[in-house]
């Protein structure tokens, strides 16, 4: 019995990836949240606060009526700086609704098509509680006004999915890119859709609140995962199709930034800003916990952007205990403040100023701590960031890089080994006149029974590959019990008995020149000498025929 280490190289492709860019949403730069907005410029004061700030709804009111001027009243005076949203849904559609002092984000409505319109306003000091829109004609209306604080006091809402006409019963998913928090509305009416519901897109588990759900209108709030991540609303329409309008406004999520197909890590201090961190998950459950990891390398594929930080270093950190997949939790998970990043274990880096070509794989330089942070038997999670995001310092120029947003484009290469104890590989038994020799082998090659002058018995119990039992000069008995492949039992010159029990492929029993007794089928036409012991009885059963021919001899006792 002995032990050895067996090496394996495992390459594990990513299973989940999440990116978060807190400064602005997908492909929308107007209005965006600049570095100045969140204080990225020296002394970097607001970033930590920003990273923990969510869009928070303070209050809302929903009213209905059928007069000319829709109106609603806040239950209290909105706070100075809050973002106010007003959604007006009308069955009459051929006149313009106005809301003085507010900015219209989206509006659609024409002859035969019901109107959906939304406005927003930054609340001032002593903001009025009563909000009244004006319209020249009377019609059924539904009006929702909402006050948002938190992150909404820093960033302006945008039209995520502009008011547009719905004319079929198909489900409509908006927006495909998701949002942090948004207000979604669809107008309905008697004689058209029997139901016009709005809900969180199946499977996303974002939080969802209905402001209005009547036969006329549905106005709801969708808040994304962790408030920073994506939510997707889905309208479900049934009944008689009729042209109507729906819209989504709010604060775009920051899951995907920049060019489609890419997630960004790093900070851009100027307008059009980016500040991303990316989490990647690898299923390392296939690396047994008892194995020893001797090396680990992270290979990431670049995104469609070729920029690479000139002064900041790409840094990868272990975040094994942080869930990266979507959850219904409203607690921040992936994002880390500089202090929090600094507390993580750095496992890999890539130097500032390195070459970076789009859609190309690059191996990062592993830190010594990488191997101990491979979460063997479980999931390994990594945070893709930069040295700026660790230190909180900030260069004057862009220090970002993109990675592919497809998790399977990134992989971990892990070399690991395991101490394996092998019961027996090769067994050699040498004995001087033992009465019995037994070898039990579980693997590979051969058992030899070498004995001089006499071994009464050899038994080999082999489970695999190849086996042979060789004995010289005289063995009274050999038993081979073989399960696979190849077996042979050879004896020279005399073996009292050989039994080979082989289950597969090949087995042979050879003895030269004489075998006293062997379990060889007599159909094999080999000359044999069969000696029966003294006083032996040979009983021939009914219809048994014993043929003695040519030079065979049958000697019988004189009696």
């Amino acid at each position, binding site marked *: 019995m002995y032990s050895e280490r067996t*090496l*394996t*190289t*495992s*390459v*594990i*492709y*990513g*299973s989940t990836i999440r990116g978060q860019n807190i400064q602005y949403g997908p492909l929308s730069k107007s209005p965006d949240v600049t570095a100045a907005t969140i204080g990225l410029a020296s002394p970097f004061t607001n970033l930590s606060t920003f990273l923990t700030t969510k869009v928070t709804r303070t209050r809302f009111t929903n009213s209905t009526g059928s007069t000319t001027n829709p109106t609603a009243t806040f239950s209290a005076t909105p706070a100075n700086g809050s973002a106010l949203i007003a959604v007006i849904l009308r069955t009459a559609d051929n006149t313009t609704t106005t809301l003085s002092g507010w900015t219209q984000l989206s509006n659609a409505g024409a002859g035969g098509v019901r109107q959906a319109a939304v406005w927003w306003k930054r609340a001032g000091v002593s903001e009025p509680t009563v909000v009244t829109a004006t319209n020249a004609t009377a019609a059924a209306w539904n009006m929702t006004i909402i006050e948002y604080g938190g992150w909404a006091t820093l960033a302006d809402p945008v039209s995520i999915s502009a008011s547009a006409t719905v004319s079929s019963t198909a489900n409509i998913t908006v927006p495909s890119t998701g949002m942090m928090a948004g207000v979604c509305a669809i107008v309905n009416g008697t004689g058209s859709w029997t139901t016009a519901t709005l809900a969180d897109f199946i499977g996303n588990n974002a939080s969802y609140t209905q402001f209005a759900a009547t036969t006329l209108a549905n106005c709801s709030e969708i808040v994304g995962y962790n408030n920073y991540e994506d939510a997707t609303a889905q309208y479900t329409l049934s009944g008689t199709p009729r042209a109507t309008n729906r819209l989504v406004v709010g604060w775009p999520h920051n899951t995907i930034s920049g060019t*489609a*197909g890419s997630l960004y890590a790093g900070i851009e201090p100027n307008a059009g800003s980016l500040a991303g961190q990316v989490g990647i998950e690898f*299923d390392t459950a*296939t690396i047994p916990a008892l194995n020893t990891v001797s*090396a*680990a*390398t992270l*290979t990431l*594929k670049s995104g*469609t952007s070729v920029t690479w930080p000139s002064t900041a270093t790409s840094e990868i950190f272990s975040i094994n205990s942080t869930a990266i997949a979507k959850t219904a939790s409203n607690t921040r998970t992936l994002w880390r403040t500089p202090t929090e990043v600094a507390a993580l274990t750095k496992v890999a880096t890539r130097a500032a100023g390195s070459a970076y*070509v789009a*859609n*190309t*794989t690059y*191996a990062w330089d*592993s830190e010594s701590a990488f191997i101990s942070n491979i979460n063997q038997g479980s999931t390994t999670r990594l945070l893709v960031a930069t040295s700026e995001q660790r230190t909180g310092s900030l260069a004057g120029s862009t220090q970002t890089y993109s990675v592919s947003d*497809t998790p*399977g*484009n990134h*992989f971990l*290469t892990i*070399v690991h*080994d395991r101490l394996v104890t092998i019961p027996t590989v090769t067994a050699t038994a040498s004995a001087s006149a033992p009465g019995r020799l037994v070898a039990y082998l579980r693997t590979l090659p051969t058992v030899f029974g070498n004995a001089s002058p006499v071994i009464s018995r050899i038994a080999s119990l082999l489970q695999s590959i190849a086996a042979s039992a060789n004995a010289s000069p005289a063995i009274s008995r050999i038993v081979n019990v073989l399960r696979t492949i190849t077996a042979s039992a050879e004896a020279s010159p005399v073996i009292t008995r050989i039994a080979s029990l082989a289950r597969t492929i090949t087995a042979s029993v050879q003895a030269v020149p004489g075998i006293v007794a062997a379990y060889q089928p007599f159909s094999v036409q080999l000359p044999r000498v069969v000696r029966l012991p003294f006083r032996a009885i040979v009983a021939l059963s009914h219809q048994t025929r014993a043929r003695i021919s040519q030079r065979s001899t049958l000697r019988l006792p004189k009696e």
Partner: protein
Amino acid sequence: MTALDDWWAVEADHSLTDYEKQALFNDIRAAAFLEVQLPFYVDALQITGIAVSGNRVDVSGLGKFSWPLRIYNGPVGVTDPDGNVTKADGSKWFSDPIEVVAQCIRSAP
């Protein structure tokens, strides 16, 4: 249709669950690696065997390397500016699974 085309078609099918996609990826991967002619060489290494089971590809070979190479959730091709298959986004890919093996071997520390 290459294996990569099949792969991308599954990737783009939003009606499938992740579990269903994974199962289809496994089938596509198995079919693609079955086509590989053995042995082949990656630099100084000779690849002598490939076995696919579920999401795992076991690669055995000769030469100085920590054999076996086990690839989990691997693709059936790799991106490369000179690739022979073009994805909808314009990126170029090698459709040959041999490139996947080569990439994994060359990534080893």
